């Protein structure tokens, strides 16, 4: 830190580290262009299947994770770092604690993104949305995040401003929550340097994944931009936040509620009903704090609305916050079970996500860059007119994108559920819903292309702005002031009267809930006594009570602990019961168990049996190719779904799936019961050229399945890993894995040979066909002749 004590010992000079902000700003734009470009490519692939170019590493399933990760972690992530580094130093009146850590954060994050950009097209993925990075990169993410956290909290510790402004709270919650989410969701058992299985399977994995997935949106795409909004919007408007009080309520209620909302991604699935209901209720409750924050942002412009006409930065911020409001209205709406029944798996969700990503995150980032960039170069923005043009083109582009996806999504939902007068499917061919959406897909492609094109205006404006200025070094004179809050002993704060009263009330309230009918009146009486005592204490020591929370707001450690507790409560009460109960669910139901509980006879026929070696290999390819991004494996309990796909999916059927493959989108049909629906030849033809069996399909070709082969020894190793995770493979299963792998592959190869098609028994094609033929069915034959059959189960 370049700080020197001036002549006045009460003041010192602080030189902000804006070089790191410039670096993050530049790379934000670079990765933003990449993310948008890949987005346009995959949008083109959905419009025109030929845009997959028949190249395996350019297929939709491999590029889609690249697009989402680049948008979230590279574009928004780097923009977040730029904004946090800029605002934190100024809000705390101190340079970042360590330049070394700042640059380690920068280069480490870019390394992660480059590794992601290389591994995804190669098909190296964990198969979980927004958490696709393979385990060694996950480790790197954790290391870089810890570096960022260490630098941030160190800076908090040496700050020269005693108060922690609301933006800092949002940054703190982001740091601690992302750490928890990322680590828990990426608990893996590696089988090689590039492959692993998640320790959770089936319903557990589904719940943990969407707890992570939704809160990645919450704590990576929402809380950091909110913190940035509370700083940069205030700067742009040059007036204080509309209501500081509202920001307090906004912060605490938002972080406490958001963490519960994950299960709304799994409505009507095999997730326990109570978890679905919790997810729905908390999502609807989330509406209130979200709109509180939005209104707080918009009302900050009171008296300054005239700037909206002339200042492109304000335009970007206002539309960004408006999109935030719209997305946080639409999210709870989609979380209502009956609305989810229509919208889930359709393009409506894609429209919802992009309203948030392009409108809220994109425009916030653009607004921040337009405001911050000239200041980083000690000059003015090169062209306000170009910024205005960027704004209008991007706004029109978003509307084209979002509206087309709404129309497409609602149409798809209606197509899928339409029944005729006799109660049968009106549109039994899935492809009809897709062909109906083609025009909307073209509109989406046009909107995405326009948004990408408009971003080049930003690039040009930034280059020209930088050329007319020079990197600025900003130094400030700040009073030498130790943060008053940190002088307070953390333990003393946590054991002060207000905290003790709060804990006592919480404990009694919980006890009241747990106690039986005899004890509960006593506990209720105690609760009332403690509450009255708290009120009396407040009356006697009003100043001290008021002062207490103020101290907590200034005490970084205590504040961080309380934030962590708030987010842990929601996560723990949802996930732990599911994990505990899943561990008690039997993987085998015996006659004795049925005699004790006859209802188990129904479950017995649904319980999943382990995959054969070839099927497991096929499943790993299915995951690697990102098939789950277009095909679900979860039939919801609706008549139209049962008619189209077969009996609804049970929790029992996917308990051994690491990772779960329930999916979240149906560009193609559900595959949960596709096994046995078509013969091997149909699958071969479909994978080689989807149009040959499904005219108008937009699925990529998978011709490389025919030439690519699998080493059976690798499969055996993976079976051993799965056994460690609870899959009941026997020693014999693993010893004979290679033989069974080849014999089952030979069965499929022989069957195709009868129809004049040649494939190798150890080919990827044989493996994928074996997996698809297994879906929704029990174990399939792994050998034909009686001798070899002995090798089978």
């Amino acid at each position, binding site marked *: 830190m370049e700080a020197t004590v001036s002549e006045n010992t009460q003041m010192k000079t*602080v030189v902000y580290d804006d070089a790191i902000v410039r670096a993050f700003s530049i790379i934000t734009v670079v990765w933003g262009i990449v993310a948008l470009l890949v987005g346009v490519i995959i949008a083109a692939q959905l419009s025109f299947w030929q845009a997959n170019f028949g190249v395996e590493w350019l297929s939709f399933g491999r590029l889609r994770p690249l697009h989402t990760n680049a948008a979230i972690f590279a574009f928004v992530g780097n923009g977040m770092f730029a904004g946090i580094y800029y605002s934190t130093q100024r809000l705390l009146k101190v340079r970042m604690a360590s330049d070394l850590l700042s640059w380690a954060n920068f280069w480490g994050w870019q390394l992660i993104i480059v590794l992601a950009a290389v591994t995804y097209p190669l098909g190296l993925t964990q198969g979980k949305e927004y958490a696709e990075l393979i385990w060694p990169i996950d480790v790197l993410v954790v290391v870089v995040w810890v570096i960022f956290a260490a630098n941030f909290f160190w800076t908090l510790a040496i700050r020269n401003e005693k108060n922690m402004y609301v933006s800092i709270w949002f940054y703190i919650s982001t740091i601690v929550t992302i750490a928890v989410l990322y680590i828990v969701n990426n608990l893996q058992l590696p089988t090689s340097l590039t492959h692993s299985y998640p320790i959770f399977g089936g319903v557990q994995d589904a719940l943990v994944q969407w707890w992570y997935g939704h809160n990645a949106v919450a704590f990576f795409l929402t809380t950091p931009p909110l913190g940035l909004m509370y700083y940069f919007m*205030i700067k742009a408007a040059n007036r204080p936040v509309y209501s500081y009080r509202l920001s307090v309520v906004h912060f605490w209620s938002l972080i406490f509620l958001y963490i519960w909302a994950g299960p709304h991604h799994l409505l009507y699935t095999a997730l*326990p009903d109570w978890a679905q209901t*919790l997810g729905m209720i908390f999502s609807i409750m989330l509406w209130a704090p979200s709109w509180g924050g939005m209104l707080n942002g918009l009302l900050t412009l009171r008296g300054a609305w005239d700037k909206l006409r002339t200042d492109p930065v304000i335009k970007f911020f206002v539309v960004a916050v408006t999109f935030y409001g719209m997305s946080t209205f639409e999210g709870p709406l989609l979380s209502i079970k009956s609305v989810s029944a229509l919208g889930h798996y359709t393009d409506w969700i894609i429209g919802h996500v992009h309203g948030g990503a392009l409108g809220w995150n994109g425009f916030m980032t653009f607004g921040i860059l337009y405001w911050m960039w000239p200041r980083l170069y*000690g000059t003015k923005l090169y062209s306000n007119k170009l910024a205005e043009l960027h704004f209008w083109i991007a706004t029109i582009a978003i509307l084209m994108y979002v509206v087309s996806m709404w129309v497409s999504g609602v149409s798809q939902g209606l197509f899928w559920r339409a029944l005729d007068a006799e109660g049968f499917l009106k549109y039994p061919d899935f492809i009809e819903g897709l062909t109906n959406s083609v025009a909307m897909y073209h509109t989406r492609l046009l909107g995405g292309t326009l948004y990408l094109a408009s971003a080049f205006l930003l690039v040009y404006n930034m280059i020209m702005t930088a050329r007319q200025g020079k990197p600025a*070094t900003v130094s400030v004179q700040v*009073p030498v002031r130790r943060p008053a809050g940190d002088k307070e002993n953390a333990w003393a704060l946590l054991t002060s009267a207000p905290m003790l009263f709060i804990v006592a009330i919480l404990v009694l309230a919980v006890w009241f*809930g747990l106690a039986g009918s005899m004890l509960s009146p006593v506990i209720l009486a105690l609760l009332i006594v403690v509450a009255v005592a708290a009120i009396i204490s407040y009356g006697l020591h009003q100043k001290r009570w008021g002062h207490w929370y103020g101290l907590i707001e200034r005490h970084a450690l205590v504040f961080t602990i309380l934030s962590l507790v708030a987010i842990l409560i929601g996560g723990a009460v949802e996930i732990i*019961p599911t994990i505990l109960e899943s561990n008690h*669910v039997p993987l085998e139901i015996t006659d004795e168990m049925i005699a004790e509980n006859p209802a188990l006879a129904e479950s017995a026929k649904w319980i999943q049996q382990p995959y054969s070696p070839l099927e497991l290999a096929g499943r790993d390819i299915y995951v690697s190719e990102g098939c789950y991004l277009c095909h679900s494996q979860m039939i919801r309990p609706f008549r139209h779904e049962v008619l189209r796909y077969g009996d609804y999916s049970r929790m029992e059927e996917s308990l051994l799936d690491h990772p779960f493959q329930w999916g979240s989108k149906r560009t193609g049909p559900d595959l949960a019961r596709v096994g046995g629906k078509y013969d091997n030849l149909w699958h071969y033809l479909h994978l080689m050229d989807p149009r040959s069996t499904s005219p108008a399909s937009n699925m990529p070709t998978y011709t490389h399945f025919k030439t690519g082969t699998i080493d059976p020894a690798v499969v055996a190793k993976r079976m051993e890993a799965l056994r460690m995770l609870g899959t009941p493979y026997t020693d014999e299963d693993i010893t004979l894995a290679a033989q069974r792998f080849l014999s089952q592959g030979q069965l499929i190869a022989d069957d195709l040979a009868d129809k004049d098609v040649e494939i190798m028994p150890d080919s990827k094609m044989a493996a994928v066909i074996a997996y698809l033929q297994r879906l929704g069915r029990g174990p399939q034959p792994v050998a034909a002749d009686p001798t070899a059959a002995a090798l089978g189960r």
Partner: protein
Amino acid sequence: MFQDYFANSPHLIWPLVGLMIFVLLFVGVLAYVFLGLRDRDKVNEIAALPLADDTATAAQPTISSQADGRAHP
């Protein structure tokens, strides 16, 4: 059927407990906002923090830009 394992779980009290904790804390935060944050000057001081770093007064930090002699905008 396996849904029954979860529907009858003794652990299902905990989501309700979590909800109760949220409600109580929410009431606490509201109480703090309305009762504890009555010092308008203090609130205004904190709310204006983002603006303070550009303000050059004796009590506040001063800013100078050294961008090759250019004034900070």
